[in-house]
């Protein structure tokens, strides 16, 4: 029986080693070369940071801040149900006193008669209606109506 022998393959492990070593050397060399191109700078001197106070310029205060505020004079609001004085007609003359009953005691003479509905003094009179502030009508929305219940909970029926 003839035995065929498998041909021996060339031993290339040395070549592989050589290629790997060369590639590794090229990588490391390239890295070293690139690093040498841009060496980091060493900071020798500490950075000097000077903090300077801000320049404050004194300015005079504005007059509206220093002067006493003017309190606004609010006009007296005329109640709507009381007419202005110039709109009030002169009071009618007092009606004649009815004849008193003879049994009624006479009034004391020292008591002055009470003035019938004398108008208030001028100082207490409200200002004319033209001084009243303008009124703005504000509409308040009506609350939403409650929805009709779909069911009612109560003790078992």
């Amino acid at each position, binding site marked *: 029986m003839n035995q065929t022998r498998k041909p021996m393959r060339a031993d290339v492990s040395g070549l592989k080693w050589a290629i790997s070593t060369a590639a590794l050397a090229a990588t490391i060399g390239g890295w070293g070369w690139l690093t040498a191109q841009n060496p980091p700078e060493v900071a020798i001197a500490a950075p000097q940071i000077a903090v300077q106070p801000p320049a404050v310029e004194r300015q005079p205060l504005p007059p509206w801040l220093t002067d006493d505020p003017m309190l606004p004079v609010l006009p007296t609001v005329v109640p709507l149900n009381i007419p202005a004085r110039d709109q009030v007609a002169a009071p009618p003359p007092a009606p004649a006193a009815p004849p008193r009953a003879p049994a009624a005691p006479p009034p004391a003479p020292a008591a002055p008669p009470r003035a019938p509905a004398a108008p208030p003094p001028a100082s207490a009179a409200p200002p004319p209606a033209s001084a009243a502030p303008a009124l703005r009508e504000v509409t308040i929305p009506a609350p*939403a109506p409650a929805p009709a*219940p779909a*069911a009612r*909970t*109560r003790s*078992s029926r």
Partner: protein
Amino acid sequence: MQQRSFWAMGSTTTIVIDSDEANARSAFAGAYQTFRAYERILSRFQPHSDLNALNRCAGRGPQRVGQTLWRALQHALWMAYRSDGLVTPAVGEALHTAGYDRDFRQMAGISAADLRTPSPVPDWRLIQCDPRRRTVAIPAGMRLDLGGSAKGWTATLIARRLGRRYPTLVDAGGDIALSGPRRDGSPWPIEVADPFHPDPGLALLMLRRGGVATSGVDYRRWLHRGKWQHHLIDPRTGDPVRTDLLTATVIAPTLSLAEMAAKVILILGAESGLHWLADQPNMAGLLVHRDGQIIRTPNVDRYCWQSSMSANR
């Protein structure tokens, strides 16, 4: 908006569907049939109901029950657990002793049942359930009543089922279950009745989902041997509860929880009930004292309609 009312489970039940579709009629019919079917299974007043069949087998060991009774009983037992046994399905015998032995419409406010001394309600934990075989064993002397619990459970079920197609509100005799907001996203307006004045309500609640229930001693009561009784049993005494409250309304994530909480508050009374309610998450209450005083939990205003609130908000 369409609605239909009918009598079921001892109460007037109203179903409201926020839809104009003509197909909603079939939904009404389905809901009505469900209420009727569940009443036949879960009622204590129907002699041939599954519940009464189980009650007749008290003390005879495990009994196999149907799917509906099993689920309703599990729900009632869960509520008993949540309420520390204050709302328990084991009150059937106590209700019978108090004279509530037939449908309330047939009582005419008077019960002629024999007057017996009430005794504490048996512990609900004595009820043995086997989920693998779906059997229930109740001890001798115990009688189950699923009354309000079954009604609330059915209403929640119907609201959930119809809510897949339409926004739905189910009002089971004043206990209300909601499937979700209305078509336009707005909440459902629900009025809380005033037990002293029938016409004006105490508050208008705006709810999108969950449930609201009112429990009270102002209506379902009767004269029994010269003594006023009502349907709410205190399991600690076996007697109708003596409480300082007239009604308790609770808003909760589900109608079943709301109904359970309202009963617990009524049993505990105003002070203890408010403390209990404060420990419950996502619940709000509105209580009416016997002297007319109205007590609100701080968070109940979140659900109340206010004049600044738009109905579509």
